[in-house]
């Protein structure tokens, strides 16, 4: 049974306009649970678009998308948001943390609309920050954290709704080698917990890591090669 399945997915931007272009062309693939999959490719190869479609953030122009064997392609936005909230945790390339509020508030931000009491949310947030070695920085404003600390806050935020799948877009693009290795170590722990992790990256440190189970190479909106861990 696949966790995620894409069948003939195409994504065209600016359709019908002179600057129309196809970010994805007829992509089909299946992703099994509990593994680390990396989408590798140069800039403009369609990695981010693919992750956005898999993560229910965008809809394909053509083709079908299944999550947990449930077709999500034509679902209304409200249902897609619900799936996104409960199934996926996102770590963005630019982190996208909200300035002016504390690390803890940033971590629990995705769970505010869930209706869970604030006290219990905060407890959960502190536990996650503790896992990332940041419990002592919980009340610190996000602007005062170092790059590595902010990265770990972003990871904790991705985990606050206990998602089955973690999606990270170019997670090591702005990190030095040490911070990149720290990040990979954190991902290894998540993988060990049974989570599915999807990366878009062209960083050799990520693509050639021993913990990666599968590398899908992309170019011009298509998957052109695949390598599985032995």
């Amino acid at each position: 049974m696949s966790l995620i399945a894409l069948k003939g997915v195409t994504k065209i931007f600016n359709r019908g306009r002179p600057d129309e272009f196809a970010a994805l062309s007829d992509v089909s693939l299946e992703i099994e649970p509990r593994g680390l999959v990396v989408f590798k490719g140069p800039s403009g190869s369609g990695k981010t678009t693919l992750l956005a479609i898999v993560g229910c953030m965008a809809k394909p122009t053509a083709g079908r998308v299944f999550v947990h064997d449930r077709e999500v392609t034509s679902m209304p936005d409200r249902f897609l948001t619900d799936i996104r909230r409960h199934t996926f945790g996102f770590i963005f390339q630019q982190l996208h943390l909200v300035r002016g509020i504390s690390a803890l508030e940033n971590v629990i931000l995705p769970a505010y609309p869930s209706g869970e009491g604030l006290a219990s949310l905060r407890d959960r947030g502190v536990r996650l920050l503790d896992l990332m070695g940041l419990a002592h920085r919980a009340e610190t404003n996000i602007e005062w954290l170092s790059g590595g600390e902010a990265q770990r806050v972003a990871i904790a935020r991705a985990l606050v709704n206990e998602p089955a799948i973690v999606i990270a877009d170019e997670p090591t693009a702005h990190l030095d080698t040490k911070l990149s290795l720290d990040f990979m170590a954190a991902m290894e722990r998540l993988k060990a917990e049974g989570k599915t992790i999807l990366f878009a990256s062209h960083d050799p440190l990520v693509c050639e890591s021993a913990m990666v189970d599968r590398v899908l190479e992309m170019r011009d909106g298509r998957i052109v090669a695949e390598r599985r861990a032995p």
Partner: protein
Amino acid sequence: MNWIDKQRNIVDFALSSLLRRWKKNLALLCVYTFVVFIVASVVFFAEALKREAGLVLEGAPDVVVQRLVAGRHDLISRGHMEKLGSITGVSDVKGRLWAYYFEPSVGANYTLVVTEEAAGRPGTVAIGAGVSRTLQAGEGDLIAFRGHDGAYVSLEVARVFPSSSELVSADLVEISEADFRALFGLPDDIYTDLTLRVRNPKETVVVADKIRRLLPDTRPILREEILRTYEALFDWRGGIVLAIFAGAALAFIIFAWDKATSLTLEERREIGILKAVGWETSEVLLMKSWEGIVISLTAFLLGLILAYVHVFFTSGTLFEPVLKGWAVLYPRFQPVPFIDPYQVATLFFLTVVPYTVATIIPSWGAATIDPDTIMRQ
């Protein structure tokens, strides 16, 4: 509980958003409060004046009949009184004596009135607090009036009216009939005007018509007409104050519109993040509307409280001269605290609702963007 907790969490985040942009929001709150304060003050004050005038006129006669000569008010004779008494439905016809008296030494006009209370104490007067202040005269002091023949008549101040009735009594001098007639040289069968009561209030207009036909040289003035005139006058004066502050109000509208309808880059980014981490469009809008409600409701309540204190505790110091009149004898009027729920509701719908809606519209534009755009930034 789940729903309540969700609202509480969203309100919590909305408040933290407001605090993060406290400079912008504080400036907005101050200007907003000022405009609500001005509008509410004018509404409260004009209403208090109208109520006061209404209360005063409650005891006024149903109809006042004045004689006109060449289109101007003239004195009226007892003969008219007898003819009025013969009209069906009319009761209690009385002659009234009143006059204006100009005192050159202080440049003020007094209103001299003969009342039944003053009839029993010739040689004395009761004066309003305004007259007392201007002349620096208290009980027991003598006030000199220049008569029609140039001779001065001194009358003793028997009483100063309490300041609670100042709006209507500030420039008043209550005098006995004998002193009044002597001062102005009026014969016994002449009055300033006549008052009458109508047994059935619904017939007042019919009676007025009969008076016009029976006594063509007179004009009947109905109490309802005076009330309407007062209301129109105070509404008009309130309008003047509002017109004066229209510039401020316009500046506020432009300022508030700009601040409320345009999102900063930071705000757009935040909305994008919320969408990307799993907030629904409706939840983002709920959060933004809470921000709008908190600002506008706070400004509304603050403005209302300040206006209440301004009008009912400091007597509307800011617009006293315009709203109350422009005579030398300014009455010190302390309006009775009163709030009309209908007016408060009108103010609420004119201030809170448009602002909140104006806040939501641009957020709606930002919140409906695809969350994946945040991934590309």
